[in-house]
């Protein structure tokens, strides 16, 4: 069984970078796949990798991470303006961040149009496609 936990943006909105990253990593270490509304800042993504490396042990093998974000080059002027105002007023809630434990998620393949998440099959350890999301 694979468990997904949704994290709405307002749950991490007022947290500092370290607390944000630790909150997400705590859920992942419970063998759950995080579906977070919005995305982390670039520095926070790097912090997430850094803290993950510090936590690696024989039980925790790391994470798989992927971010789906609207392609701004395909947005018209009106959409860009709306997006910018929304970001200023509400924070960067666009897109979605997926973080899974490496012991559960074999790999996440991403290309501009879709995300494919492969989980480890407990019996065969062969990657199995379990989830697909189109933008």
């Amino acid at each position: 069984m694979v468990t997904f936990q949704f994290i709405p943006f307002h749950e991490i909105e007022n947290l500092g970078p370290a607390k944000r990253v630790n909150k997400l990593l705590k859920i992942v270490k419970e063998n759950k796949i995080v579906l977070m509304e919005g995305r982390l800042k670039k520095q926070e993504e790097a912090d997430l990798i850094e803290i993950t490396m510090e936590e690696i042990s024989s039980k925790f093998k790391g994470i798989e991470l992927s971010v789906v974000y609207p392609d701004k080059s395909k947005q018209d002027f009106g959409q860009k303006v709306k997006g910018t105002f929304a970001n200023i007023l509400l924070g960067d809630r666009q897109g979605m961040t997926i973080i899974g434990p490496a012991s559960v998620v074999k790999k996440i393949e991403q290309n501009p149009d879709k995300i494919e998440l492969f989980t480890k099959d407990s019996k065969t350890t062969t990657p199995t496609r379990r989830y697909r999301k189109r933008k």
Partner: protein
Amino acid sequence: MGFFKDLLSKLKFNPFARKSHVKLGLYGPPNGGKSTLANRICQDWLGEEMSSVSHIAHETREIKIKEQVNIKNKNGKELTFSLVDTPGIATRIDYEDFLKRGMKKKQAKERAKEATKGVIDSIKWLDDMECVVVVLDSTQDPYSQVNITIIGNLQARNIPVLIVANKVDLKRSNIDVIKAAFPQYEVVGVSAKYGKHVEDFYEMLFKIAK
């Protein structure tokens, strides 16, 4: 004269300083060919190797620096840099992967431990770089979050970036996918192992390091 140089240096304005000495970092995921490229550069310009290479991931587990690498282009322009070869950045490290490559348990665990420290060091060193070459394996999917995170962090720090699509000697190599993934950056295809198109790479270095 020395007095004026010191004074201007203290004022952080020195018209005598040569801007051609930069700290150039090689970044990317494991097994992209960073150390092979570092060796190619050092062989071409210093006549010696810099790092050991291996088919097993995380061969480079600590930062390696080669000072005073001096390269020249066709027009006789010179560029001097400190070359920094960094451990590959990954989000997962499993010692069992090394066991599958024939290592003993103790050795595999040690390598995994060193590899995690290497990733942390690579990220910490990002702030010290003045120019970065991101080395990607052109036979692999470039849309990985590690690649996006590395390049995003360099962009956020205003560090000039050149993307090297390595391993173009292999049949499955596809530079166009890398160009499509990172359209805002210069991408140069090379085979660091065989020295293919490295002249183009050196020319591009002059462009981004100016």
